[in-house]
């Protein structure tokens, strides 16, 4: 089950949007981790409900009201590139490329 290959690593790196060029190093590292966590396969977990949160207390919802939040200036303060109160990103829709 935990036999992962360089192709698998490239696939999950693509899913995670991280450029990698050390697949050969990652294969044994990730295999060791998956081997370690794979010990859960020994357990019979039929009919056990999955747990999403350990929250044991009351977690009330707040009223859904309009309130002032961060200003445009605050939101843009840490933007790596901005122009005219907008985040600058590369061109997303190509000139002639059908997407």
């Amino acid at each position: 089950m935990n036999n992962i290959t360089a192709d698998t690593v490239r696939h999950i790196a693509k899913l995670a949007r991280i450029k990698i060029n050390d697949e050969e190093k990652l294969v044994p590292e990730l295999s060791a981790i998956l081997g370690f966590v794979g010990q859960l396969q020994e357990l019979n977990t039929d009919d056990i409900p999955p747990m999403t949160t350990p929250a044991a207390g009351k977690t009330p919802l707040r009223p859904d009201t309009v309130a002032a939040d961060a200003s445009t200036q605050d939101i843009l303060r840490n933007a790596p590139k901005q122009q005219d109160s907008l985040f600058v990103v590369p061109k997303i829709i190509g000139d002639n490329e059908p997407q």
Partner: protein
Amino acid sequence: MNLSNLTAAQGLDLLRRKNISAAEWTDSLLANIGNSQSLNAFITPDEENARRQSRLADAAYADNTPRPLEGLPVAVKDIFCTKDLKTTAASDILKNFVPTYDSTVTLRLQRAGAVILGKTNMDEFAMGSSNENSAFGPARNPWSRDIPLSPGGSSGGSAVAVAARLAPVALGTDTGGSVRQPASLCGVVGFKPTYGRLSRFGVIAFASSLDQPGFIARTVDDIAPLFAVAAGHDPLDSTSAAQEVPARPENISTLNGLRVALPEEFTDNAAPQILSAYEKGAEILRQCGAEIIDASLPHTDYALAAYYIIAPAEASANLARYDGVRYGERAADENASLDELYEASRAAGFGDEVKRRILIGAYVLSAGYYDAYYNRARKVRTLVARDFQNVFEGADLILAPAAASDAFPIGERADPTWMYQQDIFTVPASLAGLPAISLPVMLSENGLPVGLQLIAPHFAEARLLACAKIFEDAAAFTAAPPAVDTE
């Protein structure tokens, strides 16, 4: 008197009696921080603001209007957003990030008069148990003599700051042991409240169903006033609990009648030096009047594996926000496509362990593996939580080791799964969302501190802190790191 040796309780008492000033207390700690740069405890000290706040605190005492923590110096793990003060999570991707708002916990402490000394070192995004995963280099354990020792992690800088008298108390976060384990390795007290007690708003997210702010101090007495101020419902965190916060620990003077469980799985897994501390801890509790009960947490061996699926899965989702667009570093040339921009920014900005965890998280959540890994881990989490429920039907508290070993050398271990094993005693309570406190109990044969933890049922902090205080007094751990002058 060297003011940097004052505990929070001692210092606040002296401030109220006007025997010392907040300015001289803060200044003595800032001097120690300046003289201890080799410990690498702080990523961003904040001298100027700390000096200013401490002088405002003195004005409040002069006016007889001090707030509960007026003038108390606090070190803050660099994972809590602090308005206008750089907050990096020890990551290159946030190396220039300056929050425009405060985390709820730091805001509540400041509104109670606390003085923030600066932001402490940690493992990147709190992923690690040695502080070696910091983009700013590891903090160094002040108990090091010849070779540099790890302070543990991920809240390593906070534990170092408290142990080395750079701060009386510090904020940390505990996802799988990140407050309790470094506290144990540095010979100080580490407290993780019930999941949901302290707001996660403004705490840079790692694994949202596990992350919980906590405190590091040199005595149990120093925890309660911080907890009273910081805990309590926060509308800005949907998992924040609305349970009433106890104003102070229970008023008890012995442990007579208290039932403390010693799960057999912890004895089986403990290394010899940890086992001798564990046995000593049980004996101390017995002498304090507690009844020691045999117990079992049968899924303990699987807790760690479940944790190292759930935490990376949540991390891979939480860290998707670092895209090189809205905040954080961007690393791409002008001609890059949007995907290339994401991929290059994340490749340049994240360290090796963070990348491994994101990749593992993406894998266990991906089509074909979700049920086999992620869903199965969530089911095992249910089993771990049920184990605790069963033990607490016949016991008030659980005694457990706090760390798998005493402090280990920096740079010795490159194997990620070895490092994951360091969390074996702390992860089970994290999965179940239970409050726990680690306390130094003795020195190992290596002359290094070894801690134990007490684990309580949900929301039983008032009892936990009261019992921990009695245990602490009886254990009488008074050793300090070699370079610290305790006079």
